[in-house]
């Protein structure tokens, strides 16, 4: 999926509801209540935090191009997709990204794999004096322990690892471009990985597209690593999946909620604004379908809000809130978040 396609896909979902910068924050993985709740509202888990390094400059360039092509338009400060834009969205077999699940941790896995392959390759060539491509100490320590633990001096580790990589790369959801980008980023004895620019130029793509294709491959592989079929990569992927996908701060709020504190008490205790704590609750509800919301909102209110939302064809908080003065913004957000989960 190319960058423009991702933007169109997202804008299609938030069309008329959010500003033109909302996709930027989503792709960057901004940990604000608004962005995190949008992930659930609009079912955009795949794209959350996939491009933490994205510059505003590159983003604006892409958005300008979409305006120019008349794929999108700006109306009353929200971004809309045009009919032309909708027809420009190529039908995807399926979205291969899983940003919500990995939050950048996929790169930790990648670094480990890169270093493990480089080391195995060098040792196989009997050239044990090499400069590791991965410099950070955590990665080096992890891979060192990993290799020793797996008895890497016996060559079947190298063979088994190749076998597992092969299997995962053969996944029919991937195409050869994915596989090529993935394998050509790796380095080993006398074989140095290619830079984004080199990969992109060879295939006449932009660097950003090259990175996205690589990430699709990485996510798909991580999604399919299993203890049974790929035990070696499974242990290399230790602690990569986020089990409770909460930000640290929301996690603390969650623990206090579980202990029975009220929102006001938590705000007081943590010296945070009540709005922030409400953001946390939205995040918690987004992450946990079975989190009870009845302490914050009655069943009838949820029904009322959802009814109005579908009647007005909107997810804009102000529009709903204006019609229902007795509920709070927080309650509207809660109801919308929960409703999307029911539709999943």
């Amino acid at each position, binding site marked *: 999926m190319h960058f423009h396609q991702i933007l169109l896909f997202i804008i299609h979902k938030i069309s008329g509801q959010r500003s033109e910068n909302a996709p930027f924050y989503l792709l960057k993985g901004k940990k604000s209540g608004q962005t995190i709740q949008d992930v659930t509202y609009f079912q955009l888990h795949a794209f959350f935090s996939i491009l933490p390094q994205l510059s505003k400059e590159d983003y604006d360039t892409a958005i300008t191009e979409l305006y120019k092509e008349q794929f999108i338009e700006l109306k009353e400060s929200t971004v809309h997709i045009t009919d032309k834009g909708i027809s420009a969205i190529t039908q995807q077999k399926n979205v291969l990204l899983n940003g919500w699940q990995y939050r950048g941790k996929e790169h930790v896995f990648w670094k480990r794999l890169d270093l493990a392959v480089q080391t195995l390759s060098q040792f196989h060539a009997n050239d044990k004096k090499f400069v590791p491509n991965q410099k950070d100490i955590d990665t080096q320590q992890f891979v060192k322990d990993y290799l020793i633990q797996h008895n890497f001096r016996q060559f079947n580790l190298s063979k088994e690892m190749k076998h597992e990589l092969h299997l995962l790369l053969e996944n029919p959801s991937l195409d050869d471009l994915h*596989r090529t980008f993935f394998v050509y980023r790796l380095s080993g004895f006398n074989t140095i990985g290619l830079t984004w620019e080199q990969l992109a130029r060879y295939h006449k793509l932009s660097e950003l597209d090259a990175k996205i294709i690589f990430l699709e491959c990485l996510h798909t592989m991580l999604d399919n690593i299993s203890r049974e079929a790929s035990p070696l990569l499974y242990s290399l992927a230790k602690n990569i999946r986020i089990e409770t996908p909460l930000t640290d701060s929301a996690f603390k709020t969650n623990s206090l909620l579980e202990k029975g504190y009220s929102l006001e008490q938590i705000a007081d205790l943590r010296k945070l604004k009540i709005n922030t704590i409400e953001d946390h609750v939205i995040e918690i509800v987004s992450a946990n379908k079975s989190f009870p919301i009845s302490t914050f909102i009655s069943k009838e209110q949820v029904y009322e809000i959802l009814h109005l939302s579908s009647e007005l064809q909107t997810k804009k908080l102000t529009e709903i809130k204006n019609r229902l003065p007795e509920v709070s913004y927080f309650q509207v957000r809660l109801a919308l978040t929960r409703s999307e989960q029911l539709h999943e």
Partner: protein
Amino acid sequence: MSKLNEILQKKFGHISFREGQKEIIEQIINGKDVIAILPTGMGKSLLYQLPAYMKEGTVIIVSPLLSLMQDQVEQLKILGEKRVVAINSFLPFQERELAFRHLADFKFIFTSPEMLQNEQFNRALKKLSIAYVVADEAHCISQWGFDFRPDYLRISNWLQSLNKVNVVALTATATKDVVEDIKKTLRMNNPFEFIHSLDRPAIAYEVVEVDNQQEKLSWILGRVTSTEGPGIIYTQSRKKTEVYAAFLREKGISVAYYHAKMEQSDRILIQQQFQQGHLEWICATNAFGMGIHKDNIRQIIHDHIPTSVAGYMQEVGRAARDGDQAIASLLYTSTDVEQTFYVSMQDFPEEQDIQIAFKPEYAEVEQAETTTRILKYWKERLNEQDTIQLFKQIKQKKWQDIQKFYSMIQNDICLRQQLLHYFDQPLLEKPIHCCSKCKLDVPSILGKRMKNRNDQVEMNWKKRLHTLLPL
């Protein structure tokens, strides 16, 4: 075989010492302070590494350049030395704590001048028995040096806080003034001085004046497509590295660009590709070259007047590490002096910056990072007027340096002789291929380019995976 030669062979895999190495190493072992100036690529690291195996205690290496520190640690590890650590601000908190607790387990501790301020680190250091302290890139201590690091000056107080300890100062470039600064700051006591000639006879110098930027490009294209590399083209802007690379690639040259704005992972890959010979040319800003281990670089091309003679020598010095003939070419136009001065002044504090810095409500975020760092240091030591005066002097010195370089390349005097003279060294013997002012026959130096290697092989992921992991 002497004990020294034995260690040289066993630990470092060399058969004999290079000129001066043994002498310096013996002085260190005998507990003398040492200041050694020798050109890059002349085995500088061996000087502080080898004596470590002849002395009790830990060696502390203070190094102002983080990338270099990383490289030195890696090189020692490659030699099989595991008792080595780099303690700097990039070390994650937990790793740092762990290292502090086990400091005595290390034979080599690399650290940055900034870290010397860390109390916890100092407490741990005090418990160690220190063999000697190495001040690497010691020219950075001098404010007259071309890359002055104010933090490095703090090493003076730090050394005083230790019990009497020997100091080894190493640098590849130092004028007399700088040497005096180093001695004073490091509180050196009647040190043994070893000054190797900074001349690199295997490098011939060529200067070419052209009329405009377009001519530079055509000259570069002509040279690179007709002669053999490997080589580096140094330019001053990131954009230009990319432009040059694109033009050369179109001519079938295997080339990449390199600058500091690239992702770290990509920078490492390019370095490795070049080192292993998969790339023939690199178009780079001065960010490239630190920690490059490649012996057979044949050409260095500058498309500009460098901001300092010392920086130029360092960049040029990356050629001909194998001792075979290489050539350094410098292209310039008559307006390049202003351009270079502008580049070197980009981060330099102006008078009003200094005035702002001295205001009580001054917030550090307002200025560029390097400016802030230098100003902060002097603010603690000088008053406003003296600081302004000092920076005027430094600025003037920079302008003079660039002017001096310009006149060096323009006059009719042997360039090699002038470059050495800048470092107060005589030219003892002129090599056959000296410089374009002494007459230079470029075709006899550079191999004629036979054919371009065709690097565009079909990508095949299965084959590639098999190459990586052949079993």
